[in-house]
């Protein structure tokens, strides 16, 4: 009798177990995030550390961000032109390009690119420090790894994401200009005039709010995955690091898109 009952409820038990482990994971993540944020403010990490991270996350990403921004703008210009020309309103191209870049594509694509470029290496770096017991060594030396390792990365991300998003936006609008005006022959004054008329301060700020949230999520997820490499159940050692890096990128990208939807529905 007891066995039959257990069999009957085993899918339910499985569901319960899964939910519990997800909740535990989320809780651990939130504690991790708040500890990192607290360490940015309270015993502040040295400015040199943050500058170093800004250099790594921000400066070294400029090239790829400019490239992606340029081609995103150019593609949008091309697609938008051939759609709008059917209605004889190709003058609206500027507005279409600028709004879609500033509201959505700028923050999202920037965040995804930085995840791939900097987030993955954050996870790998911290993961290797974890499995080679360097983090334990830090503890032993009386250095708080949250303050020494995680907080500078979080702070630098909060600085870099909005700046890179702004660069992406401006370059993207320039890309739209290249295809729309230079290649396809829209009046340049009309292009910029439409942008000027269509873009509101709310659009710009919502883009920056998004990029700040993404910065927090991406940096925290990537550091979290690396930091707890040793606690993974699906692999340890070098394999654990590779799994942690993969998980960091995948989870970050999914979270970015989900957060984007949620934020858009709040901000619009």
């Amino acid at each position, binding site marked *: 009798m007891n066995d039959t009952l257990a069999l009957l409820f085993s899918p339910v038990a499985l569901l319960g177990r899964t939910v519990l482990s997800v909740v535990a994971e989320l809780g651990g993540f939130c504690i991790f995030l708040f500890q990192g944020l607290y360490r940015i403010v309270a015993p502040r990490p040295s400015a040199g550390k943050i500058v170093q991270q800004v*250099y790594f996350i921000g400066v070294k990403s400029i090239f790829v961000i400019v490239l992606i921004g340029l081609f995103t703008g150019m593609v949008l210009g091309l697609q938008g032109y051939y759609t709008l020309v059917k209605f004889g309103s190709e003058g609206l191209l500027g507005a279409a390009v600028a709004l879609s870049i500033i509201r959505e594509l700028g923050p999202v694509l920037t965040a995804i690119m930085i995840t791939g470029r900097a987030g993955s290496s954050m996870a790998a770096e911290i993961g290797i420090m974890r499995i080679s017991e360097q983090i334990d060594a830090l503890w032993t030396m009386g250095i708080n790894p949250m303050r020494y390792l995680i907080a500078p990365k979080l702070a630098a991300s909060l600085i870099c994401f909005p700046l890179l998003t702004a660069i992406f936006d401006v370059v993207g609008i320039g890309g739209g200009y290249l295809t729309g005006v230079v290649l396809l022959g829209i009046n340049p004054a009309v292009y910029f005039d439409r942008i000027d008329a269509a873009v509101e301060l709310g659009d710009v700020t919502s883009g920056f709010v998004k990029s700040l949230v993404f910065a927090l999520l991406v940096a925290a997820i990537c550091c979290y995955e690396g930091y707890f490499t040793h606690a993974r159940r699906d692999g340890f050692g070098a394999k654990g690091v590779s799994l942690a890096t993969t998980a960091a990128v995948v989870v970050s990208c999914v979270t970015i898109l989900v957060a984007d939807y949620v934020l858009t529905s709040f901000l619009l």
Partner: protein
Amino acid sequence: MKKYSMETTVGIFVLAGLLCVAYLTVKLGKLEVLGGDRYPVTARFKDVTGLKTGAYVEMAGVRIGRVSGITLDTKDNMALVRLDIDKGVRLTDDVIASIKTSGLIGDKFVKVSPGGSDDVLGPGGVITETEASVDLGDLIGKYVFGGVK
């Protein structure tokens, strides 16, 4: 030396980023950094369908300001539109404000036609002579269903 060059590049990066932020917020987002070169007037409309904050105010086809706020006057259910007009522009108290559409499917804007009075509308003044926005759907409906005689 190495550290110095890194700090310089970070500085350049932050500067470039901030320039882009400034362009986006001040130029595109119309953030008023230096206020005071405009004065507000209010216009009461029966209907402002489609008009948005930030839309242009034009007189004789020249831009003279922007719409800075749209609210409903709950007393008589009229739309109160706040217009920020450039300092140099003189509006008389009998100007006519009307809501027009640029092109057939373009954005709505407020067109101000000059009046003939000598009394100048100062800051905080109210434009009472207004023309509501034309609803294209309404117009077509009237035509199709015989509202037009």
